[in-house]
Structure formats: structure tokens, C-alpha cells
């Protein structure tokens, strides 16, 4: 069976050029970059070259890039690292309500350690109002952290405006750009950010490589203490092949970005147009200010995981924010934050396209998706409406 990967926001296949670039560092050039003999020196050079191209992707200087093992690590590093570095200046942090767990959960941890956190709301499209951020600022505020683009609903935030507000007030501004960097232009100078998280596997690079951009002069406390790797700011033997892969993927992303955007945008629009013709299917996230390859919906009366399984049975691989499809068994807080009632959030589906997606894939998808919906609605007790479904809370029985 032909399979169609429509979950590029979860992770991506390696670009073949990326794997080629990595291979020598699994073989001959296996040395530790801190060593002063040939295989170590060459590994070190490779890491520094990768740093330069990774920096170039976001218009940063090489020394402003700290490699990490993932987006989640970089987000934890940013939040805890700035909080601990600036705790004598203040103890208030602002984040939005639609942050990724790897921002929200460190924020909650910091709340338990004596910091106060304000969670700024979003509108029905999932957009943060920069004015709300401005209003949340107190004399104690040391950090503002806002996601650039939501992996669940695709909405792109006005981070440039928020960056301007933060800069005016002299508050450190962190952006979680995991879902955006490498897919749309991200320029740390024009966005006015002090820290920015991104991850290689989101743009055809390897898993195991992420980065935190830290603007020159910004004080940050390490998350991983130890040796002098990454300028003493992130210890651990460097994962050389993954770092090399990130550098190569960044180089390719920069080169092909416009082409990729032009490729996925019309395909995504065809999905949205077709899906919105189905009864009781709505788009989630912003209709225009959204990731170019991102189409996300709520389908009423049926549940997301069941859709994913039937779609997978037809060779289409996608994602959902429903409680059943998450191992945490909770409806996506992002969908709740944009005002979608919990029972509707169960019908969430997310399709994300990539450079391998073809027009025929979309034809097949647009034919299959309504069938899957129809099939599940045949089984659903709510096929004709939600009557009798008003119980507002869910307590899991054990």
C-alpha cells in the first residue's frame, strides 16, 4: 500500500543530503571534539561549521548558538536558565496559554520554586494580543516566552510586536520556534528576540539535535553543568553526527525555503477547501496567519484517534489533539485555550505537509477523508447532534 506522510509537524524524514553529511562522523571522524589529534580536530571543525550554518538559518552569529539535544531541552534551558540568572532582578515570568508542554511545564516547575507566572490568553484563532502581554508586565518581570507557531493549530504569533514591547521594557524575550524555524523565515534580529529555540528534526534534520539561540551578552545559567563544551554553557560530549546533520539541514532549509513554502501552501489550501465542504467540520487556528503546510480541523460527532486509525488503514499518517490519542489522556490544552469545548476537541485532526507531498496525494486524501468521517459518523450516537451530551467534566474512573 502506498503511504502518505501527513504528520510533518511530529517529525520529518532525513533529507538524503543530511544523512550523507552525517555518515563520516559515524565512521572515521568519530573523535571527541575536545581532543587535540586529527579525528578530534576534524570533529571540532565540523561542529563549528555546523554552528555557522545553523546560525545563518536564523540570522544569528555562530557564537550565539548553543547546541542541545532537542527542542524540549532548549525550552527548559531557556526558561530555567533565565529565571535562575535573573532571580535577583525579579521573579515574574509571562508565557502564553498556547505554549508547548516543554515551556508550560518548566514554567509550572518555576512556580513551585518561588517564581510567579502569568499565562496570557489567546483569541479564538490562537493569537496572543501583544497588548495583553504589555498589560501583564510588572516591575518584577524578567522573562517573556511566546511560541512562534503552534504545531497543533498552525497559528503564527506576532512575535515581532511582542519582541518590541519586551525590548522597550528591557525584558528578556524567548521564542519557541520549533514548529516554525526552517519552515518559514525566522530572523532573530528583526523579531527582536533574546533567545530562540529550534530543532533539526522539524526541517529534515536528525532527531537528537536542537539549539538555543542566546543573544550575545545575555546571561544564562546552564541546565546541564559539567565540562567546557558549548562555551561552558551546555556540558556533555558533543553529538557530532547530529550537530553536523543540523548544520546541513539548516543550510538546505535556507536554500530551499521559498521553494518549499510555494510547494506546500497550495496543497494545504486544497485540503482546507475540500474539508470545509464537509458538514460540521471547522478549521482550527488562524485562516491566513498559519504555517504554510498546516491544516487542522475539528470534526464534530466523532473522535480523533479513530480518524487517525482509519486514515492510517488507508495509508494516510496524521495526528490529533484528542484525549485518546495523547498518552496523557487529556484533550489538548491548546484547543481548550482557543475556546473549543472539550467534547469538540475530541474531534481534532492535524495534517501537515512536506516537500514530498504531491498533488496526487492530496487528490487521494480529499477523496478519503470524507469517507472516513462518514464511516465513523455511522457508528456515532451523536451523528445527528450533541443532544444529551452536556456533562461538562470528565473524571476518569479507575
Amino acid at each position, binding site marked *: 500500500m502506498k503511504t502518505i506522510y501527513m504528520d510533518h509537524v511530529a517529525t520529518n524524514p532525513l533529507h538524503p543530503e543530511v544523512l550523507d553529511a552525517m555518515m563520516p562522523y559515524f565512521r572515521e571522524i568519530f573523535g571527541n571534539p575536545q581532543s587535540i589529534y586529527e579525528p578530534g580536530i576534524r570533529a571540532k571543525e565540523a561542529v563549528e561549521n555546523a554552528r555557522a550554518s545553523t546560525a545563518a538559518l536564523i540570522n544569528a552569529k555562530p557564537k550565539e548558538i548553543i547546541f542541545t539535544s532537542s527542542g524540549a531541552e532548549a525550552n527548559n534551558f531557556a526558561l530555567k536558565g533565565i529565571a535562575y540568572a535573573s532571580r535577583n532582578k525579579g521573579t515574574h515570568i509571562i508565557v502564553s496559554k498556547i505554549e508547548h508542554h516543554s515551556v508550560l511545564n518548566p514554567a509550572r516547575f518555576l512556580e513551585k520554586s518561588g517564581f510567579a507566572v502569568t499565562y496570557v490568553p489567546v483569541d479564538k484563532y490562537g493569537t496572543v494580543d501583544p497588548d495583553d502581554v504589555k498589560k501583564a508586565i510588572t516591575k518584577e518581570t524578567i522573562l517573556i516566552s511566546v511560541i512562534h507557531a503552534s504545531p497543533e493549530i498552525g497559528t503564527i504569533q506576532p512575535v515581532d510586536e511582542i519582541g518590541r514591547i519586551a525590548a522597550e521594557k528591557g525584558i528578556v524575550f524567548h521564542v519557541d520556534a520549533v514548529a516554525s524555524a526552517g519552515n518559514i523565515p525566522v530572523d532573530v534580529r528583526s523579531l527582536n528576540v533574546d533567545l530562540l529555540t529550534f530543532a533539526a528534526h522539524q526541517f529534515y534534520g536528525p532527531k537528537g539535535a536542537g539549539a538555543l539561540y542566546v543573544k550575545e551578552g545575555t546571561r544564562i545559567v546552564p541546565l546541564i553543568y559539567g565540562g567546557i563544551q558549548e562555551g561552558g554553557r551546555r556540558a556533555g560530549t558533543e553529538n557530532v553526527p547530529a550537530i553536523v546533520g543540523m548544520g546541513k539541514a539548516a543550510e538546505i532549509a535556507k536554500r530551499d525555503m521559498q521553494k518549499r513554502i510555494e510547494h506546500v501552501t497550495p496543497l494545504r489550501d486544497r485540503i482546507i477547501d475540500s474539508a470545509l465542504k464537509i458538514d460540521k467540520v471547522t478549521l482550527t487556528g488562524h485562516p491566513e496567519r498559519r504555517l504554510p503546510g498546516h491544516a487542522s480541523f475539528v470534526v464534530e460527532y*466523532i*473522535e480523533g484517534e*479513530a480518524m487517525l*486509525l482509519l486514515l492510517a488503514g488507508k495509508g494516510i499518517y496524521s495526528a490529533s489533539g484528542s484525549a*485518546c490519542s495523547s498518552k496523557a*489522556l487529556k484533550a489538548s490544552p491548546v484547543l481548550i485555550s482557543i475556546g473549543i469545548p*472539550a467534547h469538540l476537541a475530541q474531534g481534532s485532526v492535524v495534517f501537515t505537509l512536506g516537500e514530498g507531498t504531491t498533488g496526487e496525494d492530496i487528490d487521494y486524501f480529499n477523496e478519503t477523508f470524507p469517507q472516513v468521517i462518514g464511516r465513523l459518523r455511522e457508528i*456515532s*450516537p451523536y451523528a445527528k447532534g450533541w443532544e444529551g451530551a452536556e456533562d461538562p467534566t470528565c473524571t476518569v474512573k479507575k
Partner: protein
Amino acid sequence: MYSEKVMDHFTNPRNVGEMPDADGVGTEGNPVCGDVMKIFIKVKDDRITDVKFQTFGCGAAIAVSSMVTEMAKGMTLDEAMKITKSSLADALDGLPPQKMHCSNLGADALHKAIEDYRKKQGK
């Protein structure tokens, strides 16, 4: 993730549909949690002669619903009352642990349908 049996019952669920003239109806679950099962039974001489289901929920929930209808059909009411979460999971060659409690509502919905029938009879 799911056993072959689960995938079979999910992909080809047995006994799907409404039953307008049901003798008993039971609903269990909550759409806010993600899983709701509705079971319809026809009863004759204390025996389940027909059974249908409607389910809002994940793959496990649909498979469990299908399985419970297959198991219950032809049973006496007392036998059917003995169907449990774990006998259903066993019949499906197991369920992922996190699905055991949330999506395995088939027995409860069936028991409610039987109670509903008995209550109506009592009237």
C-alpha cells in the same frame, strides 16, 4: 499498539446501529472524556436475542463495543451481567493499559441496558 483482534473489530465493527424498538438501552461514558457507548438490546425469555451499539470514541472503544455485542448476543441476562472489562480485554487479546479504564466501557453500557430492560419489566 493494538492487537490484531482490536484492529479487526475496529475496522469491521459488528452490530453497529440504532435499534428503535429496543427492550433496553444503556449509555456509558462522556464525550468530554472522549468515549461514549450506547448499547441496545432485544430480550426474549431472559435471553439477549439481538444487540446493537453506537459509539463515539477511539479505536479501542469501538472495538470493545463490537466485541461486547458479539459476546452478549444469545446469552441469558445473568450471563451477560458477568461480562467484565477484563473478560472483554482478554477476548480482544488485550488492550493498552491506558485504554483499560477510559475506553473499555462496553460491559458497563451493556449492564445498564440490562438494568434498563429489567426496570421497564418491573413497571
